[in-house]
Structures are given as structure tokens and as C-alpha cells.
């Protein structure tokens, strides 16, 4: 082992050099106050995303729906249907964007399990189709869904991009496409009579948050930062225009999905001295971004939307995420649902859009229980549906948007 000796020596030498430099700087910082010891006493391990208020498009508070009237997937227990009856779910189930798709599928699983347990003569299958969130992959997956004659209705697609790419496929097959998470405004403008959105779109979320920030929070200067995703760009546009004069053009910036180093963006926000920062993008970038904002001494309120509304955001940003405001078209999970969800899904906790997955699957199950056996009738059933779910009241306009689309504001505390 002769050769390893010198290299070990080098390593030790490097290490001691670092020790010296490290000590020196620590000495400096000790004088500056604080040093390596954090001043915050509240442990961030208790932090979680809590619902605050439900608002409408103009930012006004709307009382939460009463979950006790929510439709029950179990029904009366007397439903009869073919044992091959299948509900399909399409979305990213693998890959970097899989969390949303899995949340929806797991939520739907709770509904289907409850239904199948109560209705011995109607065992509905739930089948997940993985699109990886990739439009091209989705164009390959969609035909197999359509070709599966047992599929009576589809929960999905999950993302806006893939929905835009494959919406026509489902429309021509007249297969119900009930999305629990695709929020791009333009999707309902394609004339797809089979497409219904179970939540508010970005055109509602953007203005709702913006008005809430201006009217309720009284912020006068907001920096809107966007990532380069379809979602981020669209949301930032909606928020910026609704914020009006409160949106400061000089500190608007855009970052890239996958970025970890935001020093230039942080510097811009810092120079602007804004009241709040709105980040339109996902938690993977939001967590380092908010951490770097805080360590640079920017204490503007951090505001973001459903892309960031994920427990992972709090885990990764830690105490920096404290008091961050997160909007979401998704409703909070009631306690009973959270318990059922955990027991159905290997102890996972409900995430963003889990409740929507459950509610929308319930609507389809109710349709099946009413004796519907073909795709076209299920589309009609949903078109005329009106009823409460765990998250909200579901009733659709002719274009496939919810007739009353509302947004929830959450806060990390």
C-alpha cells in the first residue's frame, strides 16, 4: 500500500488547510453575531402546509363547502355492473413529475376500494396509464386507452401539455376525460365535448391569488418570478396582469427548471425591496430559491401556487419556508379521507389533487352504479351532474369548466 500513503497525506494536508480557513472565517462571523448557531427557536420539523381560506376569482373569501354532504362512492351497495368495467387514469406515474400522477391515482383508489367493498356485484377496475408527463409519450399511450373497450371513463390526463397533445384522441373516441390537475386555460377552448375540469384553471388561480395579495394582504410591490415550464409561464402571465401596478416589472425574472443557484434572481429581488415574491413554478426550484432568499436577508413574503404546494417543499426549504403562502385549486383533505387514504396506499399521506382524484372517481362510479355501460352515456352523465364532493360542489358549464371555480390559500406554519 505504498501508493496510498502520499494521497492520504495530501488529503490530510488539504483538510487542515480548510480547518484553518474555516476557523478564521468563523471567528469573523462570531464577531458579527450569530456565528453558526441559528437564532430561530421554533423547530421547523413541526411546519406543515395548512389551509387558511377559500377565495374566489376576485380574492374574496368564500366559506368552505360542507364535506358531510359529499358524495359517497359506496352508494347503496346494490349496484350491478360487468366485472370488466374499468376506469382509466392517465398521467405521469414514473419520472421526475410522478408525484402529482400518483397522488391522483391513490386518491381514486380510495374511492374505487370503498365502492368495490360495498358493491359485491359491481367490481370496478382502476387502471393507471403512465405518460411520464411527456406529450409524445402521451400520444403513444392514449390510443391504447381508447382501444381498451373496457375503459368507460378516463381520469386525466394529469398535465396540461400532454392534455393539449392528446385531447383530440379522446374527443374523437368520445371518451370522458375528467382531469384532476390540468389547469391550462386554453384546454376548454378546443370544443372537446368530452373534457371536464374538476378544479379551477390558471385563469382563476392567477387573478384570485393576485387580488388576495393586493386586497387582503395589502402588498404594493410584488416580484413575479417564473420558471420555463408551460405551467410557470402561463401562471406568471395571469398573476402579473391581475396584480396590475403592484407587479414590479423591474424585478420580474425567469429561471430554468432544474436550477439550484438563484443568486442573480435573489439579488434582483433584494435590490427591489419588494413586499412579496410570487414564484410560478415547482417545489424542486422553489425550495432552494426561498432558502437563498432568506439567507441573503430578503424577508419578503414568499408566495407560490399548486406546483409548490407539496410537503416536499417544506421538507427541503425547512425553516425558510415558514409563513410562505401557497395557493392551490385543490381542496384540503378531510381527516377521515386522510385516514382511509393512508390505509389504502401503504401509509402515504394525501397530497395535492388526491382529493380531486377521489371526488372525480366517485362521480364516475356513481355514473356506473346508475347503470351506465357505454362511454357516451357517461359523458352525458357528467355533463348533467350536480353534487357535492369532499373538496367542493361539482357542476360543469357547457365548455367543461366548473360553474363555481374556487381557490384555496394555504400557509406553511
Amino acid at each position, binding site marked *: 500500500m505504498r501508493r496510498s500513503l502520499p494521497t492520504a497525506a495530501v488529503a490530510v494536508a488539504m483538510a487542515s488547510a480548510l480547518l484553518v480557513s474555516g476557523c478564521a472565517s468563523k471567528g469573523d462571523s462570531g464577531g458579527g453575531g450569530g456565528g453558526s448557531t441559528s437564532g430561530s427557536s421554533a423547530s421547523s420539523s413541526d411546519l406543515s402546509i395548512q389551509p387558511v381560506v377559500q377565495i374566489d376569482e376576485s380574492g374574496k373569501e368564500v366559506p368552505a363547502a360542507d364535506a358531510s354532504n359529499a358524495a359517497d362512492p359506496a352508494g347503496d351497495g346494490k349496484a350491478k355492473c360487468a366485472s370488466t368495467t374499468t376506469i382509466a387514469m392517465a398521467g405521469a406515474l414514473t419520472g421526475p413529475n410522478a408525484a402529482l400522477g400518483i397522488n391522483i391515482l391513490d386518491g381514486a383508489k380510495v374511492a374505487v376500494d370503498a365502492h368495490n367493498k360495498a358493491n359485491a356485484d359491481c367490481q370496478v377496475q382502476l387502471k393507471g396509464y403512465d405518460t411520464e408527463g411527456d*406529450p409524445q409519450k402521451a*400520444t403513444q399511450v392514449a390510443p391504447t386507452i381508447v382501444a381498451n373497450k373496457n375503459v368507460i371513463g378516463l381520469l386525466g390526463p394529469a398535465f396540461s401539455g400532454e392534455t393539449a397533445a392528446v385531447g383530440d384522441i379522446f374527443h*374523437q373516441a368520445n371518451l370522458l376525460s375528467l382531469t384532476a390537475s390540468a389547469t391550462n386555460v386554453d384546454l376548454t377552448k378546443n370544443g372537446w365535448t368530452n373534457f371536464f375540469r374538476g378544479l379551477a384553471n390558471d385563469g382563476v388561480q392567477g387573478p384570485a391569488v393576485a387580488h388576495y395579495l393586493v386586497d387582503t394582504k395589502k402588498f404594493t410591490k410584488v416580484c413575479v418570478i417564473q420558471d420555463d415550464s408551460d405551467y410557470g409561464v402561463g401562471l406568471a402571465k395571469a398573476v402579473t396582469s391581475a396584480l396590475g401596478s403592484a407587479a414590479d416589472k423591474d424585478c420580474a425574472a425567469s429561471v430554468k427548471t432544474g436550477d439550484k443557484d438563484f443568486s442573480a434572481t435573489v439579488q434582483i429581488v433584494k435590490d427591489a425591496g419588494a413586499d412579496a415574491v410570487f414564484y410560478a413554478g415547482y417545489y424542486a426550484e422553489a425550495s432552494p430559491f426561498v432558502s437563498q432568499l432568506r439567507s441573503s436577508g430578503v424577508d419578503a413574503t414568499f408566495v407560490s401556487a399548486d406546483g409548490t404546494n407539496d410537503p416536499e417543499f417544506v421538507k427541503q426549504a425547512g425553516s425558510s419556508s415558514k409563513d410562505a403562502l401557497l395557493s392551490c385549486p385543490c381542496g384540503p383533505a378531510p381527516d377521515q379521507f386522510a385516514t382511509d387514504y393512508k390505509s389504502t396506499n401503504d401509509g402515504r399521506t394525501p397530497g395535492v389533487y388526491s382529493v380531486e382524484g377521489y371526488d372525480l372517481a366517485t362521480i364516475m362510479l356513481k355514473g356506473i352504479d346508475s347503470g351506465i355501460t357505454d362511454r357516451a352515456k357517461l359523458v352525458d352523465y357528467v355533463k348533467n351532474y350536480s353534487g357535492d364532493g369532499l373538496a367542493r360542489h361539482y357542476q360543469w358549464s357547457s365548455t367543461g369548466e366548473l360553474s363555481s371555480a374556487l381557490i384555496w390559500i394555504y400557509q406553511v406554519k
Partner: protein
Amino acid sequence: MTTTTNTPASTSGRPYHGVGDRVRLWWDAQARPTQWLIGVPFIVFIAFLPVLRIPVLTTVGTDFGSVMAQFGMIALVAIGLNVVVGQAGLLDLGYVGFYAIGAYTVALLTSPDSPWNLTDQWLSQDWAWLFCVPIAIAITAISGLILGSPTLRLRGDYLAIVTLGFGEIVRLLADNLTTITGGGQGLKRVAYPRLGESTEHPDGVFSAGNSAPPWNSGLWWFWVSIVLIVIVLLVVGNLERSRVGRAWVAIREDEDAAEIMGVPTFKFKLWAFVIGAGIGGLSGALYAGQVQFVVPTNFNVVNSMFFLCAVVLGGQGNKLGVILGAFVIVYLPNFFLGRTDLFGISIDGNTIASYKYLFFGLALIILMIFRPQGLLPARQKLLAYSRQLYQAARRAVLAGEGRTTPVPADGTVDGRGPAATKDGGER
């Protein structure tokens, strides 16, 4: 490998190695019409694979027709990249940039989201896609010229890195120039050929809405790509057998020697680059037409590596080899996707499919160590008067099976991948 490359085949006693070469020798000895007679039914068989729906072979989780359509596009990309990497020996890590330029050219000219949309002014929606394909090829070829003329003076590794930078710059420009390209929101509703419109298919057979297998849009796009592949193969094959092809081989094997022997190396490298770029642009145009939605994320550097993987896996320098490589990288992940059992053995296909980059990475490492020439290696062969020689060689083989008759100048040199001898032996 360098030790064996210098050994002529004749000393090993046989002018061919294994079944592959026997088939190859037989094929090369056939007359052109005979080759067509055998080739055309084979291509037709491949074209109807998605219709025949052979069990096991047909993909489960994804539509077979669409998978084959993607295979067609990647095969085109691989043929184009093969001209650059396999034939001229220039490592291009930014090839996806050309694919992107091709796709964006079509999208910019035909998408209603684009400021340069022509379809609502004078260009008919029905023929817009077809009209834009030559434009896309021309623009990508020009971009290849623009990139190539300063960079092709660099060699080897440096060229690889410059092209990598170019590929990323193209993607980032598409991402950042939001007023033109729509940035991350992309360009939607790209034009596609409006053919075969009927009550059943209101937007024609090429529309994404035509989805009922087997006669769906994927199949139609696959057919279009087969036609294009055949055309491109004819063009590239003729180039290969011409002075240009000989110059490429010379450059690949030893650039300095080629230069000294009077080959204008820069000019021919540029040719390879421009032709490769044009084919990449063609494939990009196909992509834009099929998916009808173009976003920058589809053109990241990982895809460049993926394309390179197809070329290396299949066999650099061998046109049919790289097509096989494209088939492997597109088909294999889809083969496993959604499959729960294979010949009675239960497997988790989705997990296997999601590991695709792991497997491809391993395949690259292992191939480079044990079989750097790829699955279907390129064989050096005489480029002129070849058929007569192959016939002679074959006669000799048939007459003297197993005899150690040295076949004169048959040129089949074992184990020689493209670029194998270039600065070999240094390390």
C-alpha cells in the same frame, strides 16, 4: 483491436466471419434489381408490422403504430447522425439542435401561436406541412453550414464539446425567445397533412385524433417516415459510393494523410455536417407534424446522447446498423412498458422501462469495451466496382469453402469499426 485491424482477413483463412458476413457477402454480390426484389417485400412487411399485430412483438402499454412512428423519426435522425459520426468520424453531441431547428421551422411557419404563421395568410392549411418540409431541411442545412464552417477546424473532443454547446444554445434560445417561440409554452396546433378526410376522420388520417388502432395516425406517420428513410438511404448510399464517400472514409481513418493525399478535408467535413444537419431537420419536421406540439424540453442534451446511443449501438458507419440501433432504443423501453408477463414469466415492465437510461449507459460502456463496432459493424469495402468483386469473392468462397485461398482485395477487414485506427495505439 489495433493489433487485429492490421491483419488482413486472408491470413485467418476465411474471408468472412460468422453468419452476418456470409449474408452480407451474399447480399453485396446480388445485382441491383435482385436486391430491390428482396428488399421491397421486406420493407412492406416491416411497414405492416403495426397492422399485423404479432403477439408478444406488439407493444402493450403504448400504441404500436405510434411507437413505430417514433422509431421512423429516430431512424432518420440516426442515419443523419451516422453521416457525421460514422462516415466522416466527427463526433457531434449537439445533433438534437438540428432536430430542434427542423421542428421549430415547421412550427414557426404553421402554428397559430407563432408570429410568423403563414397558414392564415396565403398558405393553405392542407398543404402547409408538406410545403414547410423542404424549408425546414434547407434552414437546418444552412444552420449546419453556419455551425460547421468555424468549428470543423477543431478536432475530436473539442468539436464534440462545441457541438454540445451549440445544441444547448439552440434549446435555450427556443426557451428564452418567448415572443417568437412561446418559450416553455411551446407552439401548438402545428400543421400536418390533411389527407383522407372523411366522416370517420374529420381531420384526415394524419391527425392525432385518428387513434383507433391499427389504422391510426401513428401508422400513417410511420409509412411517411419509411418512404423518407428509403429516399434518404438512396441519397446517402450514392454519396457513400461517390468521391464524397471515399473522402469521408479517408478523413475518418486519417485526416492528416487524407489532406496530404489531396483530399480537401475541410470541404468534405463541411459536406458531411450539412447533409447530416439536413436529415436531422427533416426528422424534426416529421416530429412537429406528428406531435403537432413543439416545446424546448423535447430537445435537451440527453436526447443528443440518446441519438448517439442509437448510432453507436447499431454500428457506426453502417446505415442499416444505425436503423437497427434506432429500433432498439425506441422499441425496447416501449416493449416493456405496461407488460406484466413475458412468456409466462411475470415481470414488472414499467420498472424495467424506467431504467432505460441505466441500461443504455451500461450497454454503451460494455459495447465500447467488447464490441466498439456495434451490433451490425461497418465493414470496409471497395467503393468502386464492388459488385463485380463481391461476385468474384463469392464464387471463390463457394468453390473453395474452407480452403486458404487468399481472396484478392476483398477488403473485408475484421474488427475494424469506423475511426478505429485514428490515433490508435497512443494510449
